[in-house]
């Protein structure tokens, strides 16, 4: 009944763009304790309109057809917000397009004949589960240590009672835009999660609502972070890898608040 719909396109299986012939080198590792290695695959006929993950879908379909196990990789929303996807593409976290998660990277950024090397995130805190899938739960442990404002459901005051200056709300939002993909850790030569933690800390510490727990939060989150991750040496690789362009300045804020937490007489915190 419907002659044309958003769904198929398959009726007119015309690639209206270029097609690419690629060689992929992908890290294959059957399990957490197994040995892994880079494996080469030829993948001809990739449309430039495909997203990077659709390119991997295509590879997997072809592998399944050849009775080979598909490449495991995490993905979910495919619109750059859930933070599930993420891989090292040619030595760059999330690949060559800055400010873009892997799912939003499109094949038109590559050329026919390219060799694309794909690896999982690497850090001690991100043990490999399988192929390109790593365990990023350490990031949740950091949030659990203090990444919240304690407010009982129903006990909240009227929303407009505390005005929040627009620049403050904007800065808090910029930090809160973090999608928790782990690219910052993957890109950091030290395996540090400073940018992730700082984004969470800055989001809450910048807002008036977050002031009551500001120092205990910073202390708890930084110390939890350091159980799993390395230290920050301000290379700035995390900022460059971040699909949400979270600023390095958040780290500066967090460091300041951490040191202050250690020196501050907190009984006086209410006096400003």
């Amino acid at each position: 009944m419907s002659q044309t719909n958003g769904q198929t396109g398959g009726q007119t299986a015309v690639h209206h763009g270029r097609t690419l012939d690629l060689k992929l080198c992908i890290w294959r590792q059957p399990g957490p304790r197994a040995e892994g290695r880079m494996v080469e695959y030829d993948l001809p006929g990739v449309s430039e309109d495909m997203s990077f993950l659709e390119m991997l879908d295509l590879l997997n379909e072809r592998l399944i057809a050849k009775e080979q196990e598909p490449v495991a990789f995490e993905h979910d929303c495919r619109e750059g917000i859930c933070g599930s996807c993420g891989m090292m593409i040619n030595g760059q976290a999330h690949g060559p397009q800055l400010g873009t998660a892997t799912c939003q990277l499109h094949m038109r950024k590559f050329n026919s004949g390219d060799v694309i090397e794909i690896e999982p995130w690497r850090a001690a805190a991100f043990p490999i589960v399988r192929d390109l899938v790593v365990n990023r739960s350490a990031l949740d442990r950091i949030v659990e240590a203090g990444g919240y404002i304690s407010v009982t459901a129903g006990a909240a005051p009227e929303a407009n009672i505390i005005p929040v200056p627009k620049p403050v709300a904007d800065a808090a939002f910029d930090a809160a835009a973090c999608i928790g993909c782990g690219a910052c850790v993957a890109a950091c030569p030290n395996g540090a999660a400073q940018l992730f933690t700082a984004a969470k800390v800055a989001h809450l510490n910048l807002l008036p609502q977050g002031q009551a727990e500001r120092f205990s939060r910073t202390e708890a989150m930084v110390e939890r972070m350091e159980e799993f991750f390395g230290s920050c040496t301000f290379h700035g690789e995390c900022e460059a890898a971040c699909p949400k362009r979270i600023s390095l300045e958040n780290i500066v804020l967090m460091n300041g608040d951490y040191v202050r937490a250690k020196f501050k007489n907190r009984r006086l915190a209410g006096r400003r």
Partner: protein
Amino acid sequence: MIHLDPAVPDGPIEQKWDQHKFEMKLVAPHNRRRFEVIVVGTGLAGGAAAATLGELGYKVKAFTFHDSPRRAHSIAAQGGINAAKNYRGDGDSVQRLFYDTVKGGDFRAREANVYRLAQLSVNIIDQCVAQGVPFAREYGGLLDTRSFGGTQVSRTFYARGQTGQQLLLGAYSALARQVEAGNVELFDRSEMLDVVVKDGRACGIVVRNLHTGQIVSHAAHAVVLATGGYGNVFYLSTNAKASNASAIWRAHRKGAALANPCYTQIHPTCIPASDEFQSKLTLMSESLRNDGRIWVPEEFGDPRPPNQIPESERDYYLERRYPAFGNLVPRDVASRAAKREVDAGRGVGPLKNGVYLDFKTAVERLGRNTIEERYGNLFEMYERITDEDPYQVPMRIYPAVHYTMGGLWVDYNLMSTIPGLFVGGEANFSDHGANRLGASALMQGLADGYFVLPYTVPNYLAGMLGQAPIPADDPVFRAAEAEVADRTQRYLSTGGTRSVDDLHRELGKIMWDNCGMARSREGLEKAISEIAALRVEFDRDLRVLGSADTLNQSLEKAGRVDDFFELAGLLCRDALHREESCGGHFRVEHQTEEGEALRDDDHFAYAAAWEYAGPGAEPILNKEPLEFDHVHLAQRSYK
């Protein structure tokens, strides 16, 4: 037949909830630790419910199949959240939000639930602001709002184009706090594959660990499902790839009625599919319709690029047909209008499968900076996907499956037809009727999670004081585990030739072509037989490689698609039985002369709650009559 008791409290609609809160039974604080509650799903509804129940002192186990609660698909909601705060003084009120929601839902929702939702909307904003959700602010520091499709007041609170993300992070942070405090035990990477019912009550669930393949039972006094919608039955939708219906379908098979599955919302502003490899469709927030103008060329198959088509040869069809609401008509109306243009051959883009959403006038009127501030991230996303600059060239959009109003039938307490099994968020059917208004999904999820379930679940628990949960090694759990293991093994041992995705894509095409934006008896009957045939193919020719004891993504998908097959059949049957057009359900046989939806209130003013009758058997229809005492039944008009 199931007895459907909506359990709506007596009294005037404004006082029902308050009165009900007073009448419900309480559990004393020292007794709360003795009650165990399972919450499946950690999106807005599930995350908020788990956090709040944990905070109250109940022993909560929260389950997510993701690696972290923060990845639930609530995160992808863009536009905003409605609340009757009336901060603008533009005539909004609880009453008006209630009215808009019932009317927007095309008079197929339960009034009492919707009224409660409108009342609670106000508390949600307070709660979220206190949690640190960085909502948009005006320069004076107060909260900003914007208008949204289907309404004439500005009541939508937003955080740029990432409202869902910010709200979910708020709920997630509340959950994280309870996890750290030990009140909530979090089971990540655990997919629920069955609900366990004993003596007529829900007593636990069976989950499969997606990394180790281990199948484990968890027992509790009550189970809350907040596992989202089933839009992925269409394969291509704006849902996340892993969003699935398995939890609600398994509950349905265990006796929970599934209501109104045919109410599927097609969102008007998505990026059109570009080729057969397309794995999902990307939504462009509906807020774009505030400033963008929708048009198609007047000439059929006009080959000219959009900017070379003069004003006089453009048809701004929404503004022409609905002068009062213009580009801001509700989603179902906008979607059908776009389909009509494209079907008529006036579609645009390389595949002629879209319409233009043009910002030229808005940029001229407001300046590029304002547009950038409002929609910058959306424009950027559009450019990344299509390689076209929407500041220069009009966007191309087309409707796509977005939200499912149907879901498990629940009473006023959000309890399904299985006692002890509660359902929140998109997984239930309660509040949106046949069509959901923009920015109302977040509102409903959070209302259920923060403010409804934390009252109604304890009311149920109070009656079970002194009873231990049925132990997780009870034979009823053992049997469920064995069945789950069998099913998993069956996918692996089929040994056919077709991948799960391949079969899923074909199912989706059947659904979209016959049960999408426009449905007919003929098409639906065809779909039902095609789905059955494809299901046989699935059972015979599926190829899932690897094993069950490691991370195996094909195996996960196989189980989900298997359940989609059964759900698809029910969806088509529901669409077939509903001989009217309303909201997200449009039957070509039932339309006005102008092509608008034609409701049949005399015969269909009820919620269709389907009961599972066993494998292969025809499902049993139960009806919950809907009464409209406060909003008068009327033909919707947005002219």
